[in-house]
């Protein structure tokens, strides 16, 4: 039961943290609850389909189907997160310091909801398909018994959800004027972290060269599988021994989104000038 709980917790944690960040970034946007719930539901549905097709997906692209599929899913999420940050910068979200401004901000936020729906659905799909596969395997071949596995899974899921919730509640305590900086900053790093994962998958599938493997090794200081390492891995993209290509993807994504945000925010006329 405990092993089931730990694995389900690990797999749910990332999706849950992403959900927490997205929920925080959309505070005050009408109907966001519906979109977020729909995103989770669509993700779970997709996860079950993907899990049931694991073998077929794996056999695609000369056995590299899994790497390609996950890279495409993650790459799409990176693109969506980038778009969200640039879009919100272009709509004066960073200038939102009073209620009137916030109204404009909310309109921009409403338009971004479908994008965030896709982000959540894909994040849940990716982590959920592995969870579903694991539980299916446990259920059919476990010595522990089905009930024990399911209990463990429920416990792990609850713990994972609690972590996302804690992150969300923490965000709500941030003063309004810092809110955009903090949420868009987190989305920025989240996107870079995922881009680094895309690179890792493409190296694993021998589609991209590693450039250096690893470029450095800090596993003496902080291992990937420690609690802090896992958290930093998801939120900031920490990797104790990244390949050179991962670092290129990470830095490139950071730079491109920042440039886009800057370009978009220049096009916004500050209130004082109107």
């Amino acid at each position, binding site marked *: 039961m405990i*092993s089931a709980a730990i*694995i389900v917790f690990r797999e749910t944690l990332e999706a849950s943290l992403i959900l927490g960040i997205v929920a925080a970034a959309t505070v005050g946007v009408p109907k966001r609850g519906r979109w977020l719930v729909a995103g989770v539901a669509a993700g779970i549905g997709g996860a079950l389909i993907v899990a049931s097709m*694991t*073998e077929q997906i*794996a056999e695609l692209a000369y*056995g*590299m189907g*899994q*790497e390609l599929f996950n890279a495409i899913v993650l790459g799409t999420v990176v693109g969506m997160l980038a778009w969200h940050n640039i879009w919100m910068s272009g709509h004066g979200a960073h200038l939102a310091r009073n209620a009137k401004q916030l109204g404009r901000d909310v309109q921009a936020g409403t338009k971004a909801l479908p994008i965030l729906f896709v982000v959540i659905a894909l994040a849940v799909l990716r982590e959920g398909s*592995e969870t579903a*596969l*694991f539980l*299916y*395997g*446990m259920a*059919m*071949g476990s010595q522990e018994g089905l009930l024990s596995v399911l209990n463990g899974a429920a416990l792990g899921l609850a713990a994972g959800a609690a972590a996302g919730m804690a992150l969300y509640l923490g965000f709500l305590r941030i003063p309004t004027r810092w809110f955009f900086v903090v949420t868009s900053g987190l989305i920025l790093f989240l996107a870079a972290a995922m881009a680094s994962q895309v690179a*890792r998958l493409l*190296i*694993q*599938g*021998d589609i991209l060269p590693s450039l250096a*493997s*690893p470029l450095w090794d800090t*596993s003496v200081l902080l*291992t*990937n*599988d420690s609690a802090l390492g896992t958290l930093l891995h998801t939120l900031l993209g920490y*990797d*104790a*021994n*990244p*390949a050179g290509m991962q670092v290129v993807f990470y830095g490139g994504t950071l730079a491109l989104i920042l440039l886009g945000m800057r370009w978009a925010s220049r096009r916004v006329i500050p209130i004082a000038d109107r």
Partner: protein
Amino acid sequence: MSFWKGCALLIMLFPSVVFAATPDVHVSIKNHRFNPVEVHVPAGQKIRLIVDNQDAMPEEFESHELNREKVIAGKSKATIYIGPLEPGRYPFVGEFNEATAKGVVVAE
């Protein structure tokens, strides 16, 4: 040598270079255990690790040291490219059965 002859030679050489550079190394999973537990590979070159999961249960090959993670469906094989590695020991696990599914890649 003419340009076209040079091209032809390159084309002929290229596949042999690619294949020579990535030797296959096999490891199987049975009853949630890896066999062999110690996988010996040459250091300093890219390796194609072929994991044959003979169990009905899916497994997730995971190694933080190798920076690799891949789900392997039950009764199926998966290919994972690793390295080039510095000489050393790189532990890996089957994440779905971590208590028994443990192994180590030894690069030498």
